[in-house]
């Protein structure tokens, strides 16, 4: 009952925020409202007990993508361009889609219905077999890392491709040594002369990094995993770049290392598959990684989650640096 009340409340706020995003002409306002939208969505996921998805939405949607959009806005005018043509067609398409979606909900099972198709398909098998096959408490990580390892590999490749695409368009920020002295001087104009954010930021960054590592390596036991950890790690470095300056952040993680992180994580993931094939199993069949199949599964999941985290952190940081370098 409480779930329904909170759900209706949050979804109402979600609709209000969405209308606000559409109606606002100022793009900064729209970006901030999108951040609120993501946070509300994360709360929504959380009351539906999808803690892993909620964590991802909060870290990526509300955190990193807001920062990336603000970085992109530094390159564009701050207000929306007026578009008069094609409004009726847009309205028609939106109305049609809405009608189709509303029609689709008639067949939808009720919230929490045990007879819903989603609870009849493979989900019971996952819940029953995970303790025996993999023996980790968080079944979501088991599904993501082991049963659906192909899909997750695909997702990592998608993230990598997005990063490569942005770097092709905007260019990777050059190494610190290649910059002209006047550019380096400009790198110091961030918040480095503001004492309060700098002190508090320096105090918090180690804890954010620690939390990222916790989320990374505790994903088998609680909500979390590579995607969330990568985003939190990138957020810590972006905070460092904001308070200390772009140049200092690039000295911590150099552009060369960023490229290696982007490709290296996906490579690590894929090579786990190759190793299992060389050991006589199928691609990404972790059972053969250790003498005990259950231990092999656990090792496999830990290594591929590390690969996911490294790639996500690398791609997000590279995109941020690409935008920040253009913005100056």
């Amino acid at each position, binding site marked *: 009952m409480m779930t329904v009340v909170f759900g209706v409340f949050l979804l109402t706020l979600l609709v209000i925020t969405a209308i606000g995003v559409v109606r606002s002409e100022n793009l900064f306002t729209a970006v901030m409202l999108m951040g609120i939208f993501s946070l509300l969505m994360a709360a929504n996921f959380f009351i539906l007990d999808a803690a892993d998805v909620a964590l991802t939405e909060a870290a990526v949607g509300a955190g990193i993508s807001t920062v990336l959009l603000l970085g992109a806005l530094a390159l564009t005018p701050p207000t929306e361009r007026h578009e008069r043509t094609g409004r009726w067609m847009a309205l028609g398409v939106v109305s049609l889609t809405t009608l189709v979606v509303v029609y689709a909900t008639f067949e939808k099972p009720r919230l929490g219905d045990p007879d819903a198709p989603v609870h009849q398909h493979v989900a019971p098998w996952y819940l029953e077999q995970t303790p025996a096959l993999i023996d980790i408490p968080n079944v979501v990580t088991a599904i993501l890392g082991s049963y659906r390892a192909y899909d997750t590999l695909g997702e990592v490749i998608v993230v990598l491709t997005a990063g490569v695409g942005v770097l092709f368009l905007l260019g990777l920020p050059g190494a610190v040594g290649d910059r002209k002295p006047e550019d380096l001087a400009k790198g110091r104009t961030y*918040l480095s002369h*503001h004492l*309060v*954010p700098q002190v*508090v*930021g320096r*105090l*918090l960054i180690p804890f954010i990094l620690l939390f990222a590592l916790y989320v990374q390596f505790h994903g088998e036991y609680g909500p979390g995993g590579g995607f969330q950890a990568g985003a939190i790690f990138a957020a810590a470095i972006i905070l460092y770049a904001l308070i200390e300056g772009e140049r200092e952040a690039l000295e911590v993680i150099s552009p060369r290392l960023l490229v290696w992180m982007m490709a290296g994580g996906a490579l690590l993931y894929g090579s786990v598959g190759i190793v299992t094939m060389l050991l006589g199993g199928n691609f990404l069949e972790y059972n053969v990684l250790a003498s005990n199949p259950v231990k092999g599964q656990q090792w496999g999941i830990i290594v591929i989650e590390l690969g996911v985290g490294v790639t996500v952190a690398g791609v997000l940081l590279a995109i941020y640096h690409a935008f920040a370098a253009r913005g100056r």
Partner: protein
Amino acid sequence: MATVLDVLSWIMLLGGGGFVLVGGIGILRLPDLYTRMHAASLTDTLGTLLILGGIMLQAGLTLASIKLVAIAIFLLLTGPTATYALANAALMSGMYPKDTKLPEDMPS
């Protein structure tokens, strides 16, 4: 004892909720950015802390309470910093408090 804790925690929760409400009304009604930020910071610090304290009394001495203390410390550090950064950015971009006399406007 349990009743006393319950009553105390309810007082804190209701007080926190009241401060959040006042903060929300303040954001809507106050005239300019700086006074609105003052209202918002009420929600950030006093409202949240009272609510967290109320939940802590409900949870007792458990791991949940320790996590709540960690959240409270985090909010106490970040909330005022964000407020400072916002006010500073507004002032830097040339937005002055309403009806402010700048030094150059003062009759000398």
